């Protein structure tokens, strides 16, 4: 599992990857009540908007951790967007993606490095 400085994570699941937002991000946003993501088949460059999370208070975009193609949206989030609050780094995954540029994964933080990064915020 790798993390970005903007608090997304990406995790290998078989031959695809799951993308979501970190526990830190969900604590910051609180009360997620709506999630949407770019349509299946769309290619998104690293750092570009991959979707939007809406808390009661505000809408926040989240970004592609690396260059990706969207494979599927986590349909469970349509009825239970709060999964992102309760289990952000497992059941609360947001999209399944194909990674288009694997070398970019090496530029991301591993869990320990992300934890260090959080302690600086």
């Amino acid at each position, binding site marked *: 599992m790798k993390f970005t400085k903007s608090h997304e994570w990406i995790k290998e699941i078989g031959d695809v990857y799951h993308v979501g937002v970190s526990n830190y991000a969900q604590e910051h946003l*609180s009360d997620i009540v709506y999630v949407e993501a770019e349509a299946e088949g769309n290619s998104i460059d690293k750092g570009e908007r991959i979707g939007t999370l809406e808390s009661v*208070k505000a809408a926040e975009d989240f970004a592609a951790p690396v260059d990706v193609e969207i494979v599927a949206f986590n349909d469970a989030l349509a009825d239970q967007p709060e999964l992102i609050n309760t289990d952000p780094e497992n059941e609360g995954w947001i999209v399944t993606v194909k990674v288009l540029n694997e070398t970019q994964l090496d530029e991301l933080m591993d869990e320990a490095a992300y934890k260090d990064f959080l302690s600086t915020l």
Partner: protein
Amino acid sequence: MEDLKRTPLHDIHKRNGGHIVPFAGWEMPVRFSSIKEEHIAVRTNAGLFDISHMGEFIIHGPEAVKFVDMLITNSVSSLENYHICYSPMCNDKGGIVDDLLAYKFNESKIMLVVNASNIEKDFDWVVKKSADYDVAVENESVNFAQIAIQGPNAEKILQKTVASELGKIGFFHFRELTFNNGITAIVSRTGYTGEDGFEIYMASASAEKMWLDIMEAGKDSALLPIGLGARNTLRLEAKLMLYGNELDDAISPVEAGLKWAMDINKDFIGKDRALREIENKPARTLVGFEMEERAIPRHGYAIFAGDEEVGIVTSGTFAPFLEKYLGLGYVSRSHRKRGTQIEISIRGKNKKAVIVKTPFYKKQYKKN
């Protein structure tokens, strides 16, 4: 970052885990736990709010009533002493300078409670307009702290802190009471949530003691501190106006559906436009709508009917108690009726919505 003001309760909020954000020039708690949880607590039990950022002006003098009757759209001359009215205050063009509460102590003393974001603008306006009247206008905002307790159990909890019978304070009435802790405060049966409850005005130096004593009195009832996030979702479910969203300097009380807070049998600043709009009907009007497709409408999003842009969203949210995606907005007159299908443009996609009856949540006021 500009210098943000802090309420006298700032340190308590930090100790209680308040998430502090800038709001209208103040550092205010947006939430303590979660907005949803705090919202539900106020609807089903009770919550305590620090609203010390609000502004208070005192109008003194023999012509206090005469002046305020001209200044605001609603009538203070017809109010009894120790009664309150809600009112827009208009500019010369009939747009809204602010919306406020007017507390009538007697014929020569009225307190106006105004929005934090407008204190300076309002004070300049009120002073300017007072020139021809035998009154003195004082901005007492920094000297007053304000705490609100709201919810079905608000009276029961607050009653533990004061000997005087709170049941005798009617809806939109107030008293000056001395609490068991010795603090004297203005207590009104008012609020901004759609629930029964009280707003308490006291000297800033007394705020911390008052807050702690009310929290202690509410301990057995699970009284929660509530942030501005839930204050906004609560007022939105009850269709209470937020200045800067539903109201601004260009919008009129008639457009906003506030004709009920206007007395056209007296003169007031902005009356010409009000009369014109009552006669000819305003071109746009404030409506409530419910999303039919899941999505959250937000302030500033465009409203469409087919290909035609017919209005703009002023506020929107996921409503935590009603569990619906709701919004308020201005639409052209021909699209105002209940049941009208509209679409909200959200991040480039049009999402279906329908105009519904408001308020979304029936206010639970305790009226005599």
